[in-house]
């Protein structure tokens, strides 16, 4: 019986060591598993492609009706008039996004530098949490806050800006100078949108700043630099690509922001105006949100064309941002680390 406990060599064993393949063939379960994962990845791709394809298909009729005028016409009455375009809507959207960035980039970068370079350890984590919370607050809450809290309070500042900085074309006020004409201006929308962009810029640039090589920081200090000198010589040059990329992602977010812009803007005319303090102004997103229910097939096709332009422009901006981030030194590890 003892013999049976120690099994002999298997059948066909010839007493030599055999070479064993080190690449394991995936089992059946593994093949199914990998297939499922691959399918999920393809599904994500499919959704993105479907978004593009369906928007293009459904908006083709609008592009065909408007012909080349789609990018040069300012008025947008696609139901009644085949002469419609986004020459006012798109620049308005862009202008709001630029206002938002002009405010959000300095504040966002300053906050990121504060968190990564200045804040003591004890408040660093809470600060990061606050920034994350800022990103998590729904845009409709920003919209309510902007409309009912910020708007009445910012009008005085607007007026002051128009009176004292009116020589700058952007701040010139060409309408009758009553407080009512300041309501619903693009400037206010831009300020509210900037608050939504700040957390994006802050968290992205903070991550880049914290990767700035320690060796170079120490070298700057060793040369007798102050903290600000070190930041200017090491952290900011290292993080430049990250800041640009973060700003462009913020631009994409600002272009696509809907609810806050819809709440605050009061569209008046179909003219594009750079006078941001004046009431009026519109945006692609506000136009879609305001009119999608009221229009027939022709109007909806035109709105979808607007949506397609929005989609493509944010896609371009985001891709550029990704390229900028990946090509810059930011995020690259250095040997000193």
């Amino acid at each position, binding site marked *: 019986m003892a013999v049976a406990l120690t099994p002999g060599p298997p059948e066909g064993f010839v007493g030599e060591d055999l070479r064993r393949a080190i690449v394991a063939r995936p089992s059946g379960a*593994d093949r199914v*598993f*990998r297939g499922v*994962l*691959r399918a*999920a*990845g*393809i*599904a*994500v*791709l499919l*959704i993105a492609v479907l*978004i593009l394809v*369906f928007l293009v298909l459904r908006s083709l009729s609008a592009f065909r009706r408007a012909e080349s005028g789609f990018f040069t016409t300012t008025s947008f009455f696609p139901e009644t008039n085949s002469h419609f375009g986004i020459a006012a809507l798109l620049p308005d959207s862009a202008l709001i996004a630029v206002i938002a960035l002009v405010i959000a980039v*300095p504040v*966002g970068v*300053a*906050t990121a*530098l*504060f968190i990564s*370079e*200045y804040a003591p*350890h004890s408040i660093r984590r809470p600060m990061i*949490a*606050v920034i*994350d919370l*800022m990103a998590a607050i*729904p845009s409709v*809450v*920003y919209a*309510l*806050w902007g409309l009912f809290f910020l708007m009445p309070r*910012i009008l*005085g*500042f607007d*007026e002051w800006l128009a009176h004292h900085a009116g020589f700058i074309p952007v701040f010139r006020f060409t309408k009758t100078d009553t407080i009512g004409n300041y309501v619903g201006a693009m400037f206010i929308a831009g300020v509210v949108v900037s608050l939504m962009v*700040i957390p994006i810029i802050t968290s992205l640039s903070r991550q880049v700043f914290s990767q700035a*090589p*320690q*060796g170079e920081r*120490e*070298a700057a200090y*060793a*040369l007798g630099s*102050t*903290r*600000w000198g070190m*930041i200017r010589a090491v952290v900011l040059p290292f993080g430049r690509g990250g800041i640009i990329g973060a700003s462009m992602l913020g631009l994409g977010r600002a272009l*696509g922001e*809907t609810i806050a812009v819809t*709440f605050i803007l009061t569209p008046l005319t179909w003219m594009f105006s750079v006078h941001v303090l004046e009431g009026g102004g519109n945006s692609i*997103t506000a136009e879609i*949100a305001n009119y999608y229910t009221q229009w027939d097939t022709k109007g909806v096709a035109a709105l979808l064309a607007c949506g397609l332009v*929005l989609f493509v422009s*944010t*896609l371009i901006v*985001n891709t550029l941002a990704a390229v900028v981030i990946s090509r810059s*030194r930011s995020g690259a590890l250095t*040997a*000193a680390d």
Partner: protein
Amino acid sequence: MSEQRGYRTSSVRIAGDEDATRKTRRPATHAPSARSLDADGNGTRLTDARQRVAGSPATSAGRQNPAWTSTAESNTAATNNAETRVRIGRTSGEGSATFIGAAAASLGLVWVLFERVLPFSGVLGFWVGWYVLFVGLYYLMARLQWDRREAMDRLASVGFGTGGVVAFLIVVEQVSYIFMRGSSAVGHTNFWTRSLAFAGPESPMTVGGVLHAIVGSVEELGLATLFAVPLGITAALFLAEIGGGLARVVRTIVEAMTALPDLVAGLFIYVTLILSLGVGKSGFCAALAIGVTMMPIVARASELVLRIVPGALREASYALGSSQWRTVWNVVLPTARSGLATAVVLAMARGIGETAPVLLVAGYTKELNANPFSGPMTSLPLFIYNAVHVLGTNDYIERGFGAAFVLVVVVLALFTIARRIGGSAPGELTKRQRRRLAREAPRT
């Protein structure tokens, strides 16, 4: 040698980074690698610095280089021959006095300007004026005591600190404003237990509520999570565990989709389901639209978490003979559990506040509709949009703020949950888990 190490440590402390202190406890002669420094333009300058540091005589007088103590508060101590430890991060009397003095002086000045001299007033203008004056005065006062570099350094720290304070104030201000304005509506019992079915445009606050919107929000978010989380996490597993050329493309797409305007997600569902397939506007469509915006968030955050699962754990599992599927199920996913949960909860916090996609595809109803597959359905953000933007009467604005109150509470709760479970790194056990392990250990 030990003295020199102390010197290095203190110079690193100036960086204000405690992690770095630990990292650089190497022999003091180990200066930053010249290779990396030469890689960019500043090579010569920094290498110079290294030589100067390495070549400085080891006498205490030689180490007292006044340049690097200039950031420290104890400038006067450097003239003494005895080596004193540089402590930074401690505020000196002069520093705080300058700060407080500048703040008080500018406050007084701006008050005089606004209330007595200038012909205009306004809360925002007052504080903007105060801040501008404060920065100017602070620089002036710093300049009176220190040299230009020191003063600039102080000015810069004030500037960056302002960014942090502004961001903090905005969040606090928004949340408290919504709570303040919403509290009156939330106080009515009918606000929680009724829908708007019997409320007209002029109905007072004692009629109708947001029950239908709460039900709608919960159902839409639940369906969206059911759609987005499995797809998102599976896609993240594909990116992290399989990789390859296809994964690179998918990763690019996922990143592009996280920045996709939420309105476009709504348009997509509108075009495919409602226009092309003829499905009516419903809660299900809204859930899909929310899911499309949530999915890339889940996928991206999950991939980041899965990537930091230690490779040694995977290899240990393979070495024990388990298949890839077993490894992922029994090792990778449990290790990354807390991070995955954070990703999911944060995406839910984003999803519940989505307004633009819901606006296009959910329809709007005043009545309670618990069936997401037929008929229009209202969610909290959509309710706010209609109450404030479409109706806009005083009572409806109050109701809108009440709904925003509920929304903010839910978002805050989800956010706190995410913070709680996301506090630990992958594989790190919570106290409770460690206790349970200790309890079970003798038995197995």
